[in-house]
């Protein structure tokens, strides 16, 4: 399940269940249906020519996938010694599986997509902001992150 389809469905249902996690002090959320599992952060295998936000590759029961350090991706100082860091394994709408390294998972929230306020232009990784209990939560566009991961040009 993806933002796009979620947003489309939103015209009918309005409410989408999202998983909320923190990166630095900011909170972000992604649709819970795109999450496959959450696991502890373990040692990754460094990949050559990888962009700085790619931590490396891990083995998820025989599937090899890469872990994206969202802190680096979102230009937030990474908390390397934070024991609560976890990897959220997500699957994009075209079947690409990857891990998102987040500082901590907070909770789940029902987010009414009508309340989302756009903050940046299209194509950005942030789909908008939403206020839940006076907390500002950013909607992370999964497709943008994954798309970048798969198609970024290789710098030799």
């Amino acid at each position, binding site marked *: 399940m993806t933002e796009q389809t979620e947003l489309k469905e939103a015209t009918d249902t309005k409410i989408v269940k999202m998983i909320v996690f923190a990166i630095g002090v900011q909170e972000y959320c992604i649709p819970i249906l795109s999450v496959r599992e959450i696991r502890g952060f373990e040692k990754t295998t460094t990949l*050559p020519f990888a962009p700085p936000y790619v931590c490396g590759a*891990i083995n998820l029961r025989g599937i090899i996938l890469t872990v994206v350090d969202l802190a680096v991706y979102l230009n937030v100082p990474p908390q390397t010694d934070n024991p609560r860091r976890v990897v959220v394994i997500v699957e994009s709408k075209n079947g690409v599986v990857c891990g998102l390294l987040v500082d901590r998972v907070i909770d789940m929230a029902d987010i009414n997509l009508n309340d989302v306020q756009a903050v940046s232009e299209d194509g950005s990784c942030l789909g908008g902001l939403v206020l839940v209990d006076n907390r500002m939560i950013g909607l992370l566009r999964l497709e943008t992150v994954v798309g970048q991961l798969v198609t*970024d040009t290789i710098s030799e």
Partner: protein
Amino acid sequence: MSSDMDDILQIFFQECDEQLQELERGLSALSDGESEHETVNAVFRAVHSIKGGAASFGLDNLVRFAHVFENSLDGLRSGRFAPTHDVVKVFLKAMDVLSDLVNEARGGATVDSARVAESHAELADISGTGGNQNASQAATTEDVIPADFSPVPMDFEPVPTDFEPVPFDFDFGEEEATPAAASLLVTFRPHDALYERGDDARNILIGLTDLARECDGEIQTTCDRSALPPLTDLLPDKSYLSWQVVLPPAVSEDSANAVFDWVSEDCDFSIVREGAEAAAPQEPPAEQPEPAEVVAVMPPVEDHEAPPPAPAPSVAHPIQILSPLPAPATPDAHPGPSPAGSAASSTANGAAQTAARKPEQASIRVDLHRIDDLMDLVGELVIAQAAIESLSRRTDAAGQHELVQSISSMQSLTRDIQDAVMAVRAQPVRAVFQRMQRVVREASSMTHKDIVLTLEGEDTEVDRTLVEKLTDPLTHMLRNAVDHGIESPEARIAAGKPAEGHIVLSAEHRSGRILITIKDDGAGINRQRVFETAVKRGVIPADAVLSDEEINNLIFMPGFSTAAQVSNLSGRGVGMDVVKQAIQSLGGRISISSVPGKGTTFGFSLPLTLAILDGMLISASGSTMVIPISSVIETMIVNQSDVYALPDGSNVISIRGDCMPLIPLATVLKLSNSSTPDSLDASVILVVENESGARAALIVDEIRDQTQVVIKSIESNYRQIFGVSAATILGDGSVSLILDVSALVASAIGHIDIKPSNIRAELAA
């Protein structure tokens, strides 16, 4: 059409493929001069089976052609003519048409009807000239029978709902008391052999029913059960019943005869046209129990040695069929006004079938003993696992020792299981190789050359995926061999060679790889011309000095072709580079050797499987990586005096006089930021080689181990990485990268190995 029907159709097509292979094998044996009776029979059987199967599915085109083919082969079988070269050629051509027709029926491209007609005529010709007594008669039968041949479209619905409203009637006396005037009386009595062959009286009845329906008539069927013994004596596999069928007057005797085409040897039958009053069919003795009652009598006989409750086929099937089918739902069952009409409707039905067909399901046939082997191994694995479990509970030192031992035995077991699974996936290359016969045949007839392709080692087994992916490269290579390799017959005779060209396609296992060679006895590679063309096309500078091998390798450059003119077959300059890519993507290498005037040999060396790789575990800058063993030539420790630093900061090493670039792996892969350390003394290097034989030395931190690794794609969830071909999972569960040696070497030495040649040229100047 029901999915059951689809499934059966699938099986039929699979069988067709097998029969066609059998046919190909038999015909090539015949063309090699073998005229064993058994070979001819095998060929005949193959065509016959295809025809039989096709008829059941109403695949008219196929049936008609197969029938003619079969007739001609029958001439061969009965010794009316000998399998001369020309005859076998016609048969081979007919086989190609037949396989195309099978393909067409499967939903493939439509076959050019002119080709079918041509082959048809040739076949008729053969049997015509062969049967020297009545050639014309043979020709006419050829024409008549296929037209009359009425396929029996059958519905394989498990529950014959079509037959539900059958008003079947065992009231014999009245029915045949009123047969129409001049109606056709068919009596037949199947022998036991008919059922043994898997045929059924039901098929004949259906055939007759169809005939009647084509004439808008109905049939009247009478079952004669006079020979039926009491149930206690009934043998389930004996044939006891006979039938009398009264067909409407419009049905011709010939067409009724055609129904018995396949069973004429296995049943007594008579077809008589008669007036109503003449010889009213004899009434069956009324005291005989009718089949329905037979079942009813069952309980009383229970305490006897009970005969199998399942009635003999001769009893079971008539119940379903004993009357004209009252307009069932299937479209082809509507009474057609003429045979042509019914043929058309059943073709339309066939087309609908193929259109609705699901994409072909990949399946392989595996020898049972291989599965059994696997099963045994899995059994052992279970035992070994139990042993380890119990040992792990023991805490004493001896237990510890035993545990280590049993783990190591488990290791060898795992290896065995892996081998067994690979054996299950292994397929002989025959399927691909035999397809090549046709490629060569067509290519040589297009180029007007006489070429014989000899296959060797068709039984060599390789992984199934490899078998499939070999078809295209081999087709390219063989077309090239025919078009460029073999000279024209005139040129061959002028060169003192037989006019007939020879190509040998062989496969063999060699040290864990499969080696496929394509060897022709043509003119060999004209290196002078290749060199000139390469210069003309700007691939190499005009003053380059290349070794013979380097010139040979030029033909793999994209866009390279020396053909003076573009032909249908080749000369467009696409092909060889595609071949090379295809082979390389399979992890293979290509080698060429060519002797002018004697011929050219291409060799493909391929790994046996694409799933598992023998690798060397190395580490560089803290990462463990895998290098395919197949590309590692040697490993050694650098002696600083052999290293020569180049102005641009890179290094060259001389190993026993051969200079090759040194590649600091960690730096090239950007894993470490530090440039090459000042002293390379005592670094570990791996000498690696890419497909074209170019070598380079990789500097690594450490060589860890040699192991088998399972290849996992990294691109499915990420992107392509330079220098990395795939990934694998190591014993500790961590991910490790498999290096793409050819890319690393290529980046180190430039695109093609011409740099040193340039220098050689400069020095020579």
